[in-house]
């Protein structure tokens, strides 16, 4: 059961992670400011809480799933090196060095 969930790719690349963090901080801070002002005007602190919770829900939707926006800068890995006879030879060399 858990394997099914962990097999879903949720990773973001590094720039995507930074962008996601900036987006959710921005949304929550903006909703906090709006909620504070609105709650102060209508004298209901409950509305401040609701507006921050709405900002929380919106930023969950925007930043929790690994949207393609956050995966535009994948890391460039080195190509897989040719492995074959040469590799074996090197290992053999090392072994023989150790034995000396």
């Amino acid at each position, binding site marked *: 059961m858990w394997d099914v969930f962990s097999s879903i790719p949720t990773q973001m690349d590094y720039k995507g992670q930074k962008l996601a963090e900036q987006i*959710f901080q921005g949304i*929550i801070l903006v909703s906090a400011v709006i909620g504070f002002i609105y709650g*102060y005007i209508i*004298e209901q*602190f409950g509305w401040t809480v609701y507006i921050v919770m709405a900002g*929380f829900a919106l930023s969950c939707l925007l930043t*929790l799933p*690994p949207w393609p926006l956050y995966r535009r800068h994948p890391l460039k890995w080195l190509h897989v090196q040719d492995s074959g006879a040469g590799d074996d030879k090197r290992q053999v060399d090392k072994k023989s060095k150790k034995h000396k």
Partner: protein
Amino acid sequence: MNTALSRANSLFAFSLSVMAALTFGCFITTAFKERVVPVQLHVSRVMLKNVDDFTGPRERSDLGFITFDITADLQPIFDWNVKQLFLYLSAEYSTKSNALNQVVLWDKIVLRGDQSKLSLKDMKSKYFFFDDGNGLKGNHNITLTLSWNVVPNAGILPLITGSGYASVPFPDTYETTKSY
């Protein structure tokens, strides 16, 4: 921030921090507010009896009955950091045995959204006005005041006494209890 769970964690933590800051802001915007309003108290009837106080000193003690009117506009007290007010009417007087006696006669809870203009006529006290001796008889300076606790969303719980009081003279003789 790599997996969805770690993003959910930091998002939740950040939201809670922001919420805590907002709550503090709610407290600080109302912390220095004056919450005293004028209160008109009027006493329409006073009766004094001398009865057995079975809870106290096992002697006959003075028991007062007061009928009163309260007029107050509590609307200025309410703001976004007030959930309810706990109003109580207290009588203060001094006797030979005690320099200061305080007795709560009546109380009322006013919730946010309730009718905040109080106009109460001919109210009877909820609680017994017992003196612990015979200090009410002939006591001409019994002061009634209305005080309230402000119950906030966040912050301190202020205890305010309204401006305005009623001074009640008690009679020099006891009302005789009639039994039929």
